């Protein structure tokens, strides 16, 4: 890493930075009192969270009947939200693991926040499979634990069970990965801390890290190993989520294309969400020089790519439906595009395929405002993708007599808002109390394309 200076390369971090300034820059927001803006957003998020809590409590007390589901459409908002949040959760690990393996150094300024986002998203996601049960208080029955009810185990053939393993593993590994990355920064915080209390707390959190190179040596190995494990994991998770549908028999679900299609979609939406978050964060927390316009552009490129894959998947689905000469399959897709839920389908296509094409233009990729709007559009689009896949496939399947329509109830909408509340509450707390940028990692790439810490204008 030493002497990597070359006029050909542009530095990843802007401005004249010494190691010490990096530390101070990153830690500044943690030291100062929370701004009124932070309070405002925080209270807003918390109120949504409360709304969600009330809705869920009411639903569990009264029954799933308080959702708009019926004998034909057994899943709708619940699983839509679940898949949506899992999808969001993919960006973090992807950035921290896959980009790490690809030696994408620019990842260092965003991986901390992206991973945090992943954890919170997966928390939101994990909520839905539990509350969507008719008897959520028995959700632990899907865990294969030895019991005294005679041999009584779970069904390892059920994709829902795979889900449980996938999601819980994903959450654990992501959490571990994230925390390991945090250790050196906790140490920095500890050593920078002035008050005794803080010293104590950070002391505990940092596990007594002191930057010994022997530790660094093993640390790096493990970090690399975790990355190597998390990379296939992140792919497997959405693959398995997609199997909830792919392994079923419902026309429009029963498709082999789902795993890659879902993974691409997940990354697509995940990056969009990361953009939404960091575009605000970098401004509010003054990280423009760390999370630069180049970062945003790079992410836009990834979005463009994954968005392309998603679009391709839509096309392929349609083609295969026609090519299969299977009446049910064909109908399922015609019904998506022209049936009673076509509005949802076309929202999905517009948001996920058509509009993202604008990202081919550098001007747009580097226009913060546009990108911010775009990221929100994509999130909406991806939510609708899941809604379309789940509801339009279910509501008109094999036997025409059972065809039915679905519409959400207030409780369902409140629950969705609640999950956003939970997500943003967590994220705001994170931004407040945890180094938003991986200090030690940024320091590691600080000298990249610099002479003695000075940015060289070329």
């Amino acid at each position, binding site marked *: *890493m*030493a002497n990597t200076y070359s006029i050909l390369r542009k530095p990843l971090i802007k401005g004249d930075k*010494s*190691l*010490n300034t990096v*530390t101070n820059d990153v830690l500044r927001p943690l030291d100062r009192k929370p701004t009124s803006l932070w309070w405002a957003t925080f209270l807003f998020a918390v109120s949504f969270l409360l709304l969600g809590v009330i809705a869920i409590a009411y639903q569990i007390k009264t029954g799933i009947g308080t959702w708009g589901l019926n004998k034909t459409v057994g899943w709708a908002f619940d699983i839509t939200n679940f898949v949506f949040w899992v999808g969001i959760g993919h960006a973090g690990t992807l950035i921290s693991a896959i980009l790490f393996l690809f030696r994408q150094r620019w990842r260092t300024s965003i991986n901390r926040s992206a991973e945090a986002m992943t954890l919170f998203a997966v928390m939101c996601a994990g909520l839905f499979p539990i509350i969507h049960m008719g008897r959520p208080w028995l959700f632990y029955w899907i865990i*294969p634990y030895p019991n005294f009810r005679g*041999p*009584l*185990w779970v*069904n*390892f*053939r059920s994709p829902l*069970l*795979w889900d449980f*393993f*996938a999601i819980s*593993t994903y959450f*654990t*590994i992501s959490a*571990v*990965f994230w925390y*390991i990355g945090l250790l*050196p920064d906790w*140490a920095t915080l500890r*050593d*920078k801390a002035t008050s005794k209390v803080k010293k104590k707390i950070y*002391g*505990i959190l*940092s*596990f*007594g*890290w*002191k*930057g*010994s*190179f*022997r*530790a*660094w*040596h*093993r*640390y790096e*190995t*493990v970090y690399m*190993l*975790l990355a190597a*494990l998390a990379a*296939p*994991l992140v792919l*497997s998770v959405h693959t*398995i989520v997609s*199997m909830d549908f792919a392994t079923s028999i419902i026309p429009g679900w029963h498709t082999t294309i789902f795993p890659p299609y879902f993974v691409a979609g997940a990354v697509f939406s995940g990056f969009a969400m990361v953009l939404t978050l960091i575009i605000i964060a970098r401004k509010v927390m003054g990280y423009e020089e760390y999370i630069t316009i180049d970062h945003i552009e790079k992410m836009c490129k990834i979005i463009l790519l994954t968005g392309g894959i998603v679009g391709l998947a839509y096309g392929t689905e349609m083609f295969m439906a026609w090519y299969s000469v299977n009446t049910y399959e064909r109908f399922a897709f015609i019904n998506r595009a022209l049936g009673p839920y076509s509005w949802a389908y076309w929202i999905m296509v517009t948001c996920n395929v058509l509009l993202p094409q604008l990202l081919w233009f550098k001007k747009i990729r580097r226009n913060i405002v546009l990108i911010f709007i775009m990221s929100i559009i994509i999130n909406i689009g991806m939510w609708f993708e899941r809604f379309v896949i789940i509801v339009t496939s279910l509501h008109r399947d094999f036997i025409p007599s059972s065809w039915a329509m679905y519409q959400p109830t207030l409780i369902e909408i409140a629950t969705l808002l609640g999950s956003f509340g939970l997500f943003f509450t967590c994220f705001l707390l994170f931004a407040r109390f945890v180094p938003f940028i991986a*200090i*030690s*990692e940024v*320091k*590691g790439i600080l*000298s990249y394309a610099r002479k*003695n810490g000075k940015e060289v204008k070329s």
Partner: protein
Amino acid sequence: MSANLIAGVFDNENDVLHAAEETKAQGLSIYDIYTPYPIHGLEKAMDLKPSRLTFVCFILAFMGLLFAILLQFWIGSIDWPLNVGGRPFNSLPAYLPVAFELTVLFGGVGVTLVMLFRNKLFPGKKSKQVDICATDDRFIIVVEQNDSSVSMSKIEEYWKKYNPVEVKSLDGDEI
């Protein structure tokens, strides 16, 4: 340990790297180096072998895999064989997702714990530091002064050209 330690504090990754190499070249044994972020090359200067954690990780992951497969086969065909949708008792394809997840879980979590153990890192551990700046912007080489032939001044001289911020001696129980 009785032997005194001599610490050199640097403020630049290149300096500490070269200083370390120099130190090694002089046949001195480096006790440890404290840096705010990992610097590649130091492992040579400290001649650390590549970590065996990779192997540990493989073993753990493999155990995870084995556990998952055996558990599922045992439940599926020995402990509680049931006719589920006319599918065979042992349907390996259906068992793979869980098997994979457990592999990753065991490997990942396991190796992390081992690493923390080997580094003696755990919540609430007291850390004695030469200089708390080592987690901010200072790079510290600590050399063992095990025979009198190596004097403080000598070491200072080796390090001179790498403009150390300071060179100080400290006794073993300080870290």
